[in-house]
């Protein structure tokens, strides 16, 4: 018990306390932090409203987009694909993970940039379509980067699904679509819940994808934090933004857990992480 507690204190509680204390301080003359006690930083949060708004809009949309693309993929992998293809396709899902997200985002910059897809559209006579540095580009990057995190939990829950239950449903008169809706889908909900949670939490702290594909126009709270801590060295205000983000996350995640628990009928076998 003790080593685990010590680990949590050192790695989680102490840093949070530091950030919390900093958030009431002031920026030093040469940047950094000077102890003080004022709510000025929190009252000033409105200055970063755009970052919060983008995060709060694009994180849920990104999570849902991931879900809608990942579910059919996971379903195909777990239920339809033959054993030989299953391994092959699973590897294909994992392989991009072996390359840095930075490099993969550069690839998307090229694809969505002026010489990429817009060029193709222009050649087809569709006129100029701006893709890079738009919320759409950020969304594409998010879905691309986080898809495996959504695919795996859903894949596992579908893989574990007792296929005899599908036969039982069919035997009781349920056509394939009804079987899917009444048996497969509810029983894969633990995977869906886990995947959504995983992707959503990580997305709330995302900064690399918006920085690269949003071109400074579409920025997340993560970008604001990088900016405040690294560029303008206003640690106090940065801490206040971080505390606000943690609070927003706590509220959303708690609400989400309540929701999924009620919706799964209070079953214990739903694990969120």
């Amino acid at each position, binding site marked *: 018990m003790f080593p685990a507690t010590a680990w949590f204190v050192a790695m989680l509680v102490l840093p949070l306390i530091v950030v919390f204390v900093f958030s009431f301080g002031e920026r030093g003359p040469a940047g950094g932090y000077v102890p003080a006690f004022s709510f000025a930083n929190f009252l000033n949060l409105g200055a970063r409203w755009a970052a919060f708004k983008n995060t709060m809009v694009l994180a849920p949309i990104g999570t849902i987009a991931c879900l809608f693309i990942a579910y059919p993929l996971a379903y195909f992998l777990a239920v339809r694909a033959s054993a030989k293809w299953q391994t092959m396709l699973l590897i294909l899902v994992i392989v991009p993970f072996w390359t840095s997200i930075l490099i993969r985002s550069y690839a998307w910059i090229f694809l969505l940039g002026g010489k990429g897809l817009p060029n193709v559209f222009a050649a087809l006579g569709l006129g100029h379509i701006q893709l890079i540095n738009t919320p759409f580009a950020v969304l594409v990057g998010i879905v691309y980067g986080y898809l495996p995190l959504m695919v795996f939990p859903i894949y596992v829950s579908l893989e574990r699904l007792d296929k*005899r*239950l599908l*036969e*039982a449903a069919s035997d009781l008169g*349920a056509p394939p679509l009804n079987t899917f809706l009444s048996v497969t889908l509810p029983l894969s909900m633990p995977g869906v819940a886990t995947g959504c949670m995983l992707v959503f939490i990580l997305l709330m702290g995302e900064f690399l994808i918006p920085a690269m594909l949003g071109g400074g126009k579409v920025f997340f709270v993560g970008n604001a934090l990088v900016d405040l801590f690294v560029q303008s060295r206003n640690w106090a205000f940065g801490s206040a933004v971080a505390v606000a983000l943690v609070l927003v996350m706590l509220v959303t995640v708690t609400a989400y857990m309540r929701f999924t628990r009620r919706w799964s009928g209070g079953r214990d076998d739903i694990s969120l992480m």
Partner: protein
Amino acid sequence: MAEQNDPIAELRNTSKHYGKVIAADNVSLTIQRGEFLSFLGPSGCGKTTALRMLAGFEVPTSGDVLLDGQRVNDLPPYRRPINMVFQHYALFPHLTVFDNIAYGLRQQRPRLQKAEIARAVDKALDTVRLPGYGTRRIYEMSGGQQQRVALARAIVNEPKLLLLDEPMAALDKKLRRDMQIELQTLQRQLGITFVLVTHDQEEALSMSDRICVMQGGKIVQIGSPRALYDSPNTRYVADFVGKTNFFAGVVTASGDSCQIRVVGLNHTANAPRSLVIGQTASLCLRPEQITLQRNATPADRISVPVTIAARIFLGEHTEYLVKNTDLGEFLVLVPRQAEAVEGAFEPGQAAHASWRDGVGLILGND
């Protein structure tokens, strides 16, 4: 029930191949309305494949599946008025007992009234003696209760055919006995045709109107439990249904009074399949057809000297494993009354085993 000729389902020359493996080989069988039929055989004999072809989970490679005279080969399982009790029940873990049982009713089109569904589910719960269990979750139920729920989930749809795939495999022996009696009663009461798959000969013998013994994808013999026990067609059936002693010998006379010579002794017995003089065959004697005495018996019986090798007390009966120098080891079943006359035999003692000439069967070694 089995005597009437009112077929409800039929397998007509059906075969099922999985690549090179032949799971069912030209199986033909008529199932009578209202009967309790069992497929009996060891694993891999094709009994489950036969059941799955009836349910619609497997499409025969050749031949036809008929239901009420209609060819249903291409009808998917959800379109067949047939329900199944699965081996491990396959109950929906995310639904309550009530919702599990109501599942089939809710699939019906046109939709049934809610009250109608509730009434049918409650009735089914009563039938399987689980009244008031509707709100329970599946994981709150014991193995025996889960089996009843599986049964209720199937019978509530009033299927034309109820298929049972090794339904008792997961139950302990005592529970299995109770369930066998209950299933039989239920079948009479509901009048639904039951088709059971089992590898347990006791189960098949105790419940079925007819048993279909399978081997290597083929039907070996179909008949009432008594017919299979008293006159098995082949050595395989004799071996699988009840206990049998086989004594190897050579056929010395064929036809109506078939004879076989077993280590120098000539026996007369019935042969269900025609045999050729000079071929090797077996004399089959059920343990209860042999008696044990301390002294040699009158001349009208065939008698051999034996030593008692082991004794198994079974309550009503005592089973003795005895050994004869020429015949080897074989089983003798001694009823309680007979033992009272002769006294119990102890392992190591000498005795005489005897039987009347003419009892038993002569079966080829196939």
